[in-house]
Every structure is written in C-alpha cells, then in structure tokens.
C-alpha cells in the first residue's frame, strides 16, 4: 500500500498568479485560454498560447504539473474552437486537460492518446456508474467531484471508482447548483458558464451607491441585493441574491459565503482523495499566495501526522465572500 498523499491543485488566471501559486507551494496549477473554452472567461483574464507554453516551462522547471481547463460545452457549429484548444494544450505541454463535454473527451482521446484526461466539475458526475462509464469509454483518469457530496459520500465514491482518482474542492466559491447544468446566469443575461465560460458576465453587472452608504447590486434587470453600509458583500450572482417572497426577505438559493474544508483534510486523506482544489482563477495573486500557503501548511501537517485543526478563519477571512465560511456539504446532515 502506498503512503498517503494529497496533491494541492491551485488556480491561476494570469502568469503572475501562476508564479505566486508555485511560490506558495502548489503541486499543480490549473489555467485556461483567453476565450470561451473555459469557465472563467472574464475580461483581461487567462493565457495566450505563448503565455501557456511559458507557463508549462516554468511549472515543469519547478517540478510541478500544469492542468489546462477546457471545461465549457462547445457551441454547435463551432466545435473547431474547442478542438483547437485541446490541440494547443497538448502542444503547450499540459500534464492534463480538464474537460466536461463528452464529444471533447472523445476528440482528446482520439487525437492525443497520451494526454491525461481529468473530468471537470462541470460534467457533474457524482455516481460510480457515471464515472466508470467515462473512465472506460474515454480513459478519464481523474474526476473533480461536485460540491454537494458529504464526506461519507466522497469516501464511498472514491473507493467505488478506484483506480480513477478523485479531486474535491477545498476552498473558494461555493456553488451548490448542478454544475454544468445551471441556467440562472443564462436566464437573466443570455450567457452562462456552461457555454460562454462566464457566470454573471461583467457587462451585465451594475453597482450603485445609494444615499446612506448602501450599495445595490444588479444583474441585467434583476436587483440581486442591497448591502447596508459596512456590511460584507458577495458576488452579484443570481444564486446569491436576496429576494422577497411570501412576505419575507432572504437568500432564496444560498447565502454569499465561501467554502473552507480545511478541517476535513485528514478525513479526505483517509478517504483516499487524490487532490484538493482551490477555486478562484478570477482572484488576484494576493489571494493565491495567502490561500495556497495556508493549505500547503495544513496538508503538510496532516501528511506528517501533526495536523491540528488549522486556524485559517482569521488569516483568510478577508478572502471570503460575504466574510463567512462554511464546510458546505462535507458536514451536511440532512438528506
């Protein structure tokens, strides 16, 4: 039996963030190209082909791995853009591509048989049957699990799908929707992370300062929230909106809060999970440095048997949406 291990997979939206992740102790860094082929297609973010090649060189020189997310669903009639992204990832020297679309998995397997395939969370595969099918059909070697599973479910699933590796989210944006299927952003703006690579596109977002210091956030024609002066704020996404219904005002889908699963690191190692993922390719290098550094220390402590529940809450409080943290579904007790 091999020694326990847990790889730390970290986000990079820019070459500078990639360097920050490597410096802070990432085992692997994931990036995307500057177009609609990845789910963080934000203005001014992501990598050109030349930047991706340079990123692969720097990452490999540091002895780490580079994953490239091509995790949106190709537009009918424009499959060539997504195929080209897979070709470019292989050419740049990616250690793995993170894909969600079945057609794209088939393309990668057929044209780049040596390229390692990871299944994106956007594929929303959460049953042994689905994962086994994808592994047997396309050669998927790792699956990123949705953020809706309990620790017990992650443990069972990891055992059931071995030798396919599992990767789980440990920190960052808390998305509890059926990822890859969510239509909330598309409903309001016509654009979604699934097809355009962007949830709540910046062009549809407006903030307005009200008298008294309140701030109103809007997405398209929909008011998302009104934050009182001094109160923490969250992303202007429909799922984090506060609405009036049946005479009460509250968060209809979920509250603005960040996932922090640091307490569960020993449990995830015991479950056989292969990698922890930090969310946040849209965040700055200061976020990457702080979050990756904290999780590097926590993982190293856990692997060396010296783990105590890390006090990440204070150190990372300012990085958290709404200034709040949750262990999310890992602690879920309801069914």
């Amino acid at each position, binding site marked *: 039996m091999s020694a326990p291990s847990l790889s730390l997979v970290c986000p990079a*939206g*820019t*070459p*500078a*963030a990639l360097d920050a992740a490597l410096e802070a102790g990432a085992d692997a860094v994931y990036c995307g190209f500057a177009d609609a082929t990845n789910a963080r297609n*934000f*203005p*001014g*973010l992501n990598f050109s082909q030349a930047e991706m090649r340079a990123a692969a060189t720097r990452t490999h020189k540091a002895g780490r791995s580079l994953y490239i997310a091509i995790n949106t669903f190709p537009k009918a009639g424009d499959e060539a853009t997504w195929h080209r992204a897979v070709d470019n990832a292989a050419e740049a020297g990616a250690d793995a591509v993170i894909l969600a679309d079945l057609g794209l998995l088939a393309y990668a397997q057929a044209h780049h048989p040596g390229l390692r395939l990871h299944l994106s969370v956007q594929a929303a595969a959460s049953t042994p049957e689905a994962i086994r099918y994808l592994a047997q059909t396309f050669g998927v070697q790792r699956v990123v699990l949705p953020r809706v599973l309990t620790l017990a479910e992650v443990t069972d699933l990891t055992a059931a799908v071995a030798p396919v590796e599992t990767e789980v989210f440990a920190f960052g944006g808390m998305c509890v929707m059926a990822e890859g299927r969510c239509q909330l952003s598309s409903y309001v703006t016509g654009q979604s992370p699934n097809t355009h690579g962007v949830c709540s*596109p*910046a*062009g549809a*977002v*407006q*903030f*307005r*300062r009200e008298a008294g210091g309140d*701030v109103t956030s809007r997405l398209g024609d929909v008011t998302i929230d009104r*934050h009182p*002066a*001094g*109160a*923490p*704020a*969250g*992303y202007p996404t429909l799922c984090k909106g506060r609405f009036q219904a049946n005479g009460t005002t509250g968060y209809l889908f979920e*509250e603005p*809060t960040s996932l922090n699963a640091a307490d569960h690191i020993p449990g995830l190692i015991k479950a056989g999970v292969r990698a922890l993922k930090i969310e946040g390719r*849209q*965040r*700055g*290098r*200061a*976020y990457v440095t702080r979050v990756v550094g904290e999780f590097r220390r926590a993982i190293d402590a856990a692997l060396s048997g010296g783990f105590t529940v890390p006090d990440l*809450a*204070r150190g990372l*409080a*300012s*990085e*958290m*949406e*709404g*200034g*709040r*943290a*949750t*262990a999310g579904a890992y*602690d*879920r*007790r*309801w069914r």
Partner: protein
Amino acid sequence: MSLDPTDPPPLSPVLLAGLAARLMPPLPLLGRPLTGPVAARLAQAAFDRLRRRHQGVFDRLAVLGERAFLVDPSDLPVRFLLRPAGARPGLWPIAEGNAAPAAAATLRAPLGALLALLEGRVDGDSLFFSRQLMIEGDMEAVLILRNAVDGADVTLERDLADRLPPRLLSLGRRWYGEIDSLLHLAARAAIQPASQPVTEIRP
C-alpha cells in the same frame, strides 16, 4: 501615536488624523497643493514611467480604447482621471469640488488600499467583499484594468525612484519608507473589519 502594524484598529477619521500627523515633517517638502501644476506634472511623469516599465500591461489595456477611470482615494481631497490607453493616455489629478470629467467607471477606496491593489498586495474581490472598494460603471472595463494590473509586478519604489540622483534618492527613500509603512498600515486598517474571525456556518 503608537500603532501595532500587524493589528491596526479599523480605519477611522481618528486613525487618519494620526497618520497625517506622523507625515507632517516631510509634507512641507511638497510645497504645493496636491492638485497644482507640479502635482499634475508629477502624476503624468509617474504614469509615463510605469508605462515604459510595464509595456506588456499597457498592451493588454489597449482594448480599453478611450475608456477612462475616475480613481477616488476616499481619504484624500483629490481624485485622479486615469486613461490607460487611447489617443492621449495619462493620469490627471482633479481637485475636490471640481467637476469630474466623464469616466467609464469609478473606483473608490482608501489610498492605502488602492496602492496595495496596484502592487498586487491585496485581492480586488477581497476589498470588494469587505466594502472597502466601491466600483460603479463599466464592470468589464474595471475587470480588464484589475486583471492587467494584478498580472504586472508593480513596485512603486523600484519603478518610480531608481533613476533619481543618489542624494535625492536617499532623501526620497527615507520619505517613501515613512509613507510606505504608513500606507501599509492604512491598507491593513482598511481591510481590518474583514480580518475579524468569520462566522462559521454549520448546517
């Protein structure tokens, strides 16, 4: 005034007054108001210098075209119009009370937080979550600016001061060191409310 730089109190008028008091000795060296012709020339010179040193960043910002930003340090009686690209790129101070020119977006935060953002020492989303950064207007333009700047390696002391004569540099470093430590303190104070222990949500 004695402050613990690792755990400052929240930003407040009292704290700012204290910081200003600590700056009083070098302030007369400025000799002119923040928005006079000397300040305008200094702002443009600093902008030109950053543009030369970080050409790649400004190449990324070319997509902004003529779009300009109103940068509003909430703790200073001056605002800046920043036009990173277009036919006449530059940085112009605007005195308090003067009408601001049309801008695609406005960014408002304490000066220390804005400089920390420029140098990549703080994450823009974090400043937004903690309500220290207020953005109004064209969010797409703001993201282009934020992501390009965050991807650069801006260090103001290195970028702006390394061609000064040695004696002036020495004087400048002493003064900048004082300013820089106070701005770091102000930046930490600005995000201090969000650094309190977070609420843990348990299902």
